[in-house]
């Protein structure tokens, strides 16, 4: 079984405990944070395991890359702390499981992996996505969502199979070596989680925004600046690949939209609260959504743009009620091409 590459000594010697001190959902004094985190590192029960809303952010907060969130998930699973009620967890394991129905299909580079979100394929169209092949579905699904369910074991079991399927049924026969990840959960899986657990990724993962940016730079002359003010909803998995957050700024600059200064942005971005609902912490989820949407509006946003469909589903309604337009990044960028 794959083991987490994590250095306990680094944590035990860590004075700042940034992972917990910067957490927006666990509020502990420095000493207590250290104490609770040490317990966690030593494999003992810790309040952190119960209080964590699985927002992934501490993966970004640890200055040493010591995978605090992956460790939390390991410990939750080992100590049977279920962030989400057990029936929901079990049902999701079946719902998102592989079907064994994948068939060989030749693809042509560039290839976008739609993850589980085949229903969003309609967004892959127009100038930016011309000539793109898409793949997706339960047999190539990264399964990283099980981080929210204290189930690293499910990811460990399924991910190698999924990577094998991607190679065997799509990339290898087509001679393709790069895979563009529609959802940055997949990108985070291949660039962060897989290396952290020693799983080899035989293709080059490319972030969707990276691909879009390159394409759009080639088509720069066709872009008509939009002139909107747009708030960006950073998804939890972007904490696994924080370097990609600056791609949002690059895309915005290219299509002539402004990313307003917000209180909850970049490192302080708030979770969409879908998983907080799943954890049955409804008041916290509601409060989180309210703060997030009010912040977008106060910053003068006209649009709220999303990378993650799940964030979109969770926030679209409150965003609309607050008088803004929810939109996926691909659609926003296509607007700059008049599409």
């Amino acid at each position: 079984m794959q083991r987490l590459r994590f250095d306990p000594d680094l944590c035990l010697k860590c004075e700042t405990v940034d992972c917990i001190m910067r957490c927006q959902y666990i509020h502990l004094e420095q000493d207590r944070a250290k104490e609770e985190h040490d317990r966690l590192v030593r494999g003992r029960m810790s309040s952190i395991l119960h209080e964590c809303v699985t927002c992934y952010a501490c993966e970004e907060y640890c200055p040493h890359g010591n995978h605090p969130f992956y460790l939390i998930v390991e410990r939750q699973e080992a100590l049977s702390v279920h962030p989400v009620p057990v029936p929901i967890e079990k049902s999701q394991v079946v719902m998102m499981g592989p079907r064994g129905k994948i068939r060989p299909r030749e693809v042509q580079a560039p290839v976008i992996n739609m993850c589980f979100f085949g229903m969003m394929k309609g967004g892959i169209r127009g100038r930016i996505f011309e000539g793109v092949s898409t793949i997706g579905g339960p047999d190539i699904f990264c399964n990283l969502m099980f981080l929210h369910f204290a189930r690293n074991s499910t990811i460990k079991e399924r991910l190698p199979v999924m990577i094998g399927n991607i190679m065997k049924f799509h990339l290898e026969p087509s001679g393709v070596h790069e895979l563009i990840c529609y959802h940055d959960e997949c990108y985070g899986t291949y660039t962060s989680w897989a290396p952290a657990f020693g799983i080899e990724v035989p293709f080059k993962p490319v972030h969707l925004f990276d691909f879009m940016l390159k394409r759009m730079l080639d088509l720069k002359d066709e872009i008509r600046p939009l002139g909107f003010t747009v708030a960006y909803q950073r998804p939890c998995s972007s904490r696994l690949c924080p370097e990609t957050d600056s791609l949002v700024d690059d895309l915005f600059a290219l299509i002539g939209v402004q990313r307003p200064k917000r209180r909850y942005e970049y490192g302080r971005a708030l979770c969409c609260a879908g998983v907080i609902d799943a954890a049955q912490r409804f008041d916290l989820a509601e409060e989180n959504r309210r703060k997030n949407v009010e912040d977008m509006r106060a910053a003068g946003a006209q649009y709220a743009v999303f990378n993650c469909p799940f964030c979109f589903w969770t926030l679209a309604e409150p965003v609309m009620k607050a008088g803004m337009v929810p939109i996926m990044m691909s659609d926003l960028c296509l607007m700059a091409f008049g599409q």
Partner: protein
Amino acid sequence: MDRIKDRLEEIVGKDYVSCSAEERFIYSRDQGVQEPSEPDYVVLPATSEEVREIVLLANEAKVPVVPMGGGLVLSGLTVPLKGGIVLDMKRMNRILEVNENSHYAVVEAGTSQGMLDAYLRKHHPRLKHSLPDAPPVATIAGNIAIHGSGHLSQSEGGFHSEMVTGLEVVLPTGELVKLGSCSTVSAWFSRAPLPDLAGLFLGWNGTTGVITKVGIKLFPRQAHHDVLIFMTEDVDAAPDILFRVIHTGMAEDINYALSPKPDYLSGFQMIVINVTAHREDELALKLRIIRESLRDYFETKEAGFMPMPPNMKAGLLEVPQKALSRFADVRKGGGFEYVGAIMPLEKIPDACRAGMEITERNGITYSLGARIIGRGHSAMFFFAYPFNRADKDEIRRVRSALEETNEEAIRLGGIPWKAEAAGQKLILGSMEPATYELMKKVRTLLDPNGIMNPGNWEV
């Protein structure tokens, strides 16, 4: 020359009488497992007077009359077991009156659920009626004639037969009678304070007369909707969970479901809670109160509210619910047996276990569930068994499951709902002799020639 056919044509017009083989074939069966039986005549009356003349003719000729609405009851209750006339009521589909202030509508018996709903949405958007989850062609009268239930049965007063404010009925001997306030004054507002005679026609499966008009209660239509699903693996927890949600007084419709399909829901008890409100903050408060009522369940993480993607939520917010109609065709081949039993809430876990054992023993698939009636006074527990009509063996197995289910429902302390003729015999066999005798007296009195839907409620 067929004298009866001629007379029927004189009454309703040539276009609305048929003895053709095709028509008789179609009207000889429904989607369930009951054996077909052909009518001699299919007739579509347009007015109460035409119904009256048909019934008088049937009395004279001693020919059975079987009233039929949408024909969706699925237990053979509109199959003419002893031949005769099938009286298809669909032409009598006018909406005669809507009284906004007193919250009722008066409709002709063949008015479909879908028509009344569409009419209210268009002309009286502040009002709605309680819709069963049956396909929308099901009729208002057909549904109350079997004590149907729907999406307001939980919160607004029980079975649809309890929402009836008045009836117009053609008796088996041809008299046209009005029941309820409309018998004494012009408005159809209530069955009280008069002696309640409407019960002589509600739940009688069309064996005591032909309903020609119905006064039915309307309720406020709220602008805001939401739905919650509470999930548990513990079948025995269901009554307590239901009790708590009912007691909040915040839920419009409460349904319980257990189904092996889709596979990710197999083995889980799902309590689907629909909530409506006039205002957004009211909706939020209601949802919060319902969630709070189950806090000690979800805090242990043994059970909890399921997060739903928007498409799933949108499906569950639809009224009527289409899930059961879709499930009805899961085996393909158009067969669907939908057995229900009205029972006390605490019997739900046992009914579930029984349903699963019966279906496993008979090698068939199932969907089990219950709709809460009248704030928990009872539940309509359904055992839905889809099958392929082309598969004789599957039909045999579903029939056997149906018989076992009826027996089990009674053993558990429930009563089979809209039972087929054999199921009705089972019920009558368990009935107090004095009640049975009273039913017999009523039938003999109302229908001396035994022409109304014979073979059903045979006493």
